[in-house]
């Protein structure tokens, strides 16, 4: 095993010291043959900091398509000619049915996602009603993802019982203008801050494979440390027809494993969740990701694309002897 991997493992597991961005950059530059050792070190960090429990979540697009933003990876943007068109807000009974599906597969988390720039008053009233309804009826922890918030809206969502709020940074500040032009990275960062300031857990994800450089991924890790999320969903680009990123190549599986491991080494205490694109990127290497630092997953389908069946994930976790449970950030 290369000396720098051993040193990183000792620093994070033994000394409980945060690796510097320079140390992480050196690990990112290791050759492919060192990735399994890097993954092994990341798994040791995950077990030491978070234990062996895996948090399982289901997600639902409760308002699909027609989004005014131009996130270049997203098939729900109204700016691009994609097969995903606008649908009306789901009714309570439709949301509850999806939440019950999620509870039945053994998940503890359910995230309601809305394709909007930010909530208007009608959506706020819906959220204030539906978050409590789903929680009471299913016992699930309910998270929300509804775009950019005002301070008043963040307070209302916390008051309504939203357990976690998802707002992704997606990519490094220096790369963001290449991906989104209708809002800024700083606006995203500000909403992330509001989430924490109002007592909700922050779920702040990333999307890898959009053309960002390794240095920009390291930059993103530093930015995530600044914003302090409880959870980081790791998405890999699944190029969608009609979007500006439709022709981007899918990230190589071993490269994805390398970056899962680096995210765990950089963020030892977070809930690091397998998210969109894992099927097309990792293929048969799903188990390897689970032993490279991941300790949570979105199971079943995504917002507009299909994932593995939840049963496949349950069988995988049983085989890995990783119990399913609810997690919170290690304090």
């Amino acid at each position, binding site marked *: 095993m290369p000396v720098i991997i051993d040193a990183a493992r000792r620093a994070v597991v033994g000394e409980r010291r945060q690796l510097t961005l320079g140390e992480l950059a050196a690990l990112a530059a290791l050759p492919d043959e060192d990735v399994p050792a890097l993954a092994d070190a990341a798994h040791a960090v995950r077990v030491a900091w978070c234990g062996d429990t895996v948090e399982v979540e289901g997600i639902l697009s409760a308002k699909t398509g027609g989004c005014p933003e131009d996130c270049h990876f997203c098939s729900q943007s109204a700016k691009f000619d994609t*097969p995903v068109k606008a*649908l009306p807000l789901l009714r309570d009974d439709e949301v509850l049915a999806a939440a019950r599906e999620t509870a039945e597969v053994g998940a503890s988390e359910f995230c309601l996602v809305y394709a909007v720039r930010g909530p208007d008053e009608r959506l706020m009233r819906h959220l204030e009603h539906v978050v409590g309804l789903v929680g009471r009826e299913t016992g699930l922890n309910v998270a929300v993802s509804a775009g950019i918030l005002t301070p008043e809206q963040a307070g209302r969502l916390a008051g309504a019982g939203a357990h976690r709020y998802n707002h992704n940074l997606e990519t490094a500040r220096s790369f963001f203008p290449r991906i989104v032009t209708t809002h800024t990275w700083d606006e995203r960062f500000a909403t992330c801050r509001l989430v924490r300031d109002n007592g909700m857990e922050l779920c702040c994800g990333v999307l890898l494979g959009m053309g960002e450089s390794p240095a920009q991924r390291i930059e993103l890790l530093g930015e995530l440390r600044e914003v302090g999320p409880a959870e980081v969903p790791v998405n890999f680009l699944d190029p969608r027809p009609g979007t500006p990123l439709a022709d981007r190549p899918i990230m190589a599986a071993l490269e994805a494993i390398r970056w899962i491991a680096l995210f765990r080494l950089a963020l030892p205490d977070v809930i690091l969740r397998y998210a969109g694109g894992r099927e097309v990127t990792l293929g048969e290497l799903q188990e390897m990701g689970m032993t490279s630092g991941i300790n949570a997953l979105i199971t*079943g389908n995504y917002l*507009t*694309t299909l994932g593995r*069946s*939840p049963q496949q994930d349950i069988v995988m976790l049983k085989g890995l002897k990783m119990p399913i449970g609810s997690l919170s950030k290690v304090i």
Partner: protein
Amino acid sequence: MFCTGCGRRTGECGGCGRDADPWHYCPDCGRWLATQVTPTGWTARCRGCGLTHEVRH
């Protein structure tokens, strides 16, 4: 028959639909479908010919 990925006639499309995608166009009439994905399935409804297609894991 029409491609469920792009709505073109099957012979005019090289097969753009993927297993990881639900249907977005009606295989019977080629019109756009109202497709809702949920954690364990998806439903697609055609406002043109009335087709409803439902898949559960």
